[in-house]
């Protein structure tokens, strides 16, 4: 109950803009400020061939994730079929269609980290946050991800929280590390 109420209260009421008045179904709920930023990106790349990945990358920076509406918006502006846009979005693991938490926790599952016990660290994170990799905590704070080798094997096992790297850690230290965020 509490969570639902919280969701309700945090849901912003964006100014609503109809793209097309006689087509009520295709109403785009526009978060104007963010769409304005996206428009600037699109203005720049509209006529540049092969710019889809760049535009999506910028869009994700602006919105935090690539919602259905954003993908369709990009597709229409660039004249690329929506199917192709989603094909790219779902291919690259850096893109996400789900809203992300404030912090993304990446647990390195590369060989070195794995051997040094990153499995246990992942288990600890899963039970402490109550989510599976790819999911976001209900309070919107953390998104949990596993990742391939991050190239810092000397610090194995490592996790990344946001832009911070935590190396040489054990499962027991997780609770303490999380208190910093």
């Amino acid at each position, binding site marked *: 109950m509490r969570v639902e109420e919280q969701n309700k209260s945090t849901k912003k009421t964006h100014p609503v803009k109809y793209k097309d008045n006689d087509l009520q*179904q295709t109403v785009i709920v526009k978060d104007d400020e963010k769409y304005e930023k996206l428009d600037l990106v699109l203005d720049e790349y509209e006529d540049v061939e092969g710019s889809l990945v760049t535009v999506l990358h910028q869009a994700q920076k602006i919105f935090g994730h690539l919602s259905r509406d954003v993908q369709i918006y990009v597709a229409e502006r660039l004249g690329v079929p929506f199917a192709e846009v989603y094909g790219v979005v779902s291919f690259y693991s850096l893109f996400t269609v789900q809203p992300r938490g404030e912090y993304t926790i990446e647990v390195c599952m590369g060989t070195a980290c794995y051997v040094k016990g990153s499995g246990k660290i992942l288990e600890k994170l899963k039970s402490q946050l109550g989510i599976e990799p790819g999911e976001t905590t209900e309070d919107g704070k953390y998104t949990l991800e596993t990742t391939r080798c991050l190239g810092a094997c000397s610090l194995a096992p490592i996790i990344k929280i946001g832009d911070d790297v935590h190396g040489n850690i054990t499962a027991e230290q997780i609770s303490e590390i999380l208190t910093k965020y």
Partner: protein
Amino acid sequence: MSKKKISLEIDGQKVQAEEGTTILEAAKQIGIDIPTLCYLKDINVEGACRVCLVEVEGDPKLGASCVYEIKEGMRVKTSTPRVIKARKQMIELLLSDHPNTCLTCIANQNCELQSLAAKYDVRGFRYTGERRRIPIDDLSPSIVREPEKCIMCRRCITVCKEVVTASIYDINERGFHSFAAPAMNDSQIDTPCTYCGQCILVCPTGALHEQRQDTELVWEALADPNKHVVIQTAPSIRSTIGEMFGMPIGSLVTGKLVTALKRLGFDRVFDDCFGADVVVMEEGTEFIHRFAERKRLPQFTSCCPGWVKFAENFYPELLPHLSTVRSPQQVFGALSKTYYAEMVGIDPNNIFCVSTMPCIAKKFEARRPEMTVNGLRAVDAVLTTRELGQIIKQAGIDLPNLSDSEYDEPMGYASGAGVIFGAGGGVMEATLRTVYNKLTGEAMRADQYKAIRSDSYTSIDIEIRGEKMRFAVARGLGNARHMIDRILAGELKVDLVEIMACPGGCVSGGGQPIYSHKDKWYMQVDAGGQRGNALFREDESKEVRTAHNNPWVKKLYAEYLGEPMGERSRQLFHSSYTKRPMYGRTPHDLCKKEPARV
């Protein structure tokens, strides 16, 4: 200038082929049949499935022959133990992630993967393990998608993008989890899918197929003593249904088809071409009016439900230009529940109107909310050629050996003009024959209208009463898009345009027989030509070859409708079109379960 010739050796035989040819095509020249699964000549050349592997001397790896260009002096081996083993392994790997429910699959015995597994003697499953679990999309009235059966050949993607230009498919996800589908694995109903069904024709497995919701309805209606069941056969069915029974492509079996339907127990067997004749009368008159007023020109035909949906999605600005006449299927359906019901004194509520169509978009069309007459569905059930073939087989009727019968009165007699509706350019030709006559009082000469048959993208100029009119035909929605863009840009001036969604017209429709055959694409295109020619042959054998001279059409107008485009016609046959959103913003959630990602 012809291309440079290149000499090479395949399996010890010398071959000469043009520069740029692939090993696969060069091998074909000397009768070597390399297996393929994803390949569609000129349409889908991806090297995706890897079953066409061959050994090239000097190359340590096996190569996919469909994308391997020939080189001077090359020595290729297409059937060494290594090659055979590798191909078999490719098939086994495809099967490791396949539902393998072949017995109950719609593509059973008509599946390219199945026939390859048989050819390479795959026995048992060598690789077992995790399988993709992806929900089935059966929300649309026309197409069912079973992504678990997708083998990632990309044919549907390419055909939808390059030929149809609706571009609704692409690969979703990555690696093991990937499959071809609309964006976000949406249901077809949330996409600008035209339901033309070309993707079904090229799908090598049962991953894409038509809805078969109506077969059971038809069986039940036939068994119901209170129902008066009438059936209309679309123009092209007569030249394709024979193929369902192993007859050669292009076999014309009109009389046998009528006998089969009568044996099945239909109370009346009618010809949809009669509906087509009525459409010619209405559409022709509409065009004459518009041309006289110089309003809403060019006029576009509206017989093809795939094209209508395409226009509603992609070219809403053209909707006022579409002829308001419903398609022959719907015109016929409306007449069956009004004119015919009154004539025979049967309550329209008890009339069950079945249509048999070469098309899966017709299923969508029949269910459009506006396609009613006096509150009743104009057409109650739509069967594709494939479904009808199956029903006839289930009833144990041996179609090829039946004797001929005649269609029933009053809606069974069609002119040659109605018959050619199923062939590419036929709608235009049929309309021209009548329009020319109405405007000049003379019969049009065959050489004048035959010119429109030639190509899938063509236009002809005809002078009528000192006024030059230009008539154009585009078959295949890619061609249509090209033509429309030229028209909109002012580069092409035309007065009347026929557009058919499928590349060969209705004879190559999405509901026609499917061949689990290599080179499917060209086979279908060629088949379209032969099937169409069969319809032109029937046209030539007809005594009456113009809609306005069809005595039963005259009778219909004299006794019931009055004038074409008159009040009653408008009420029964004329329709409006809806601008449709490209993509649903709030998608139907049946398919929304995200596939697991690692």
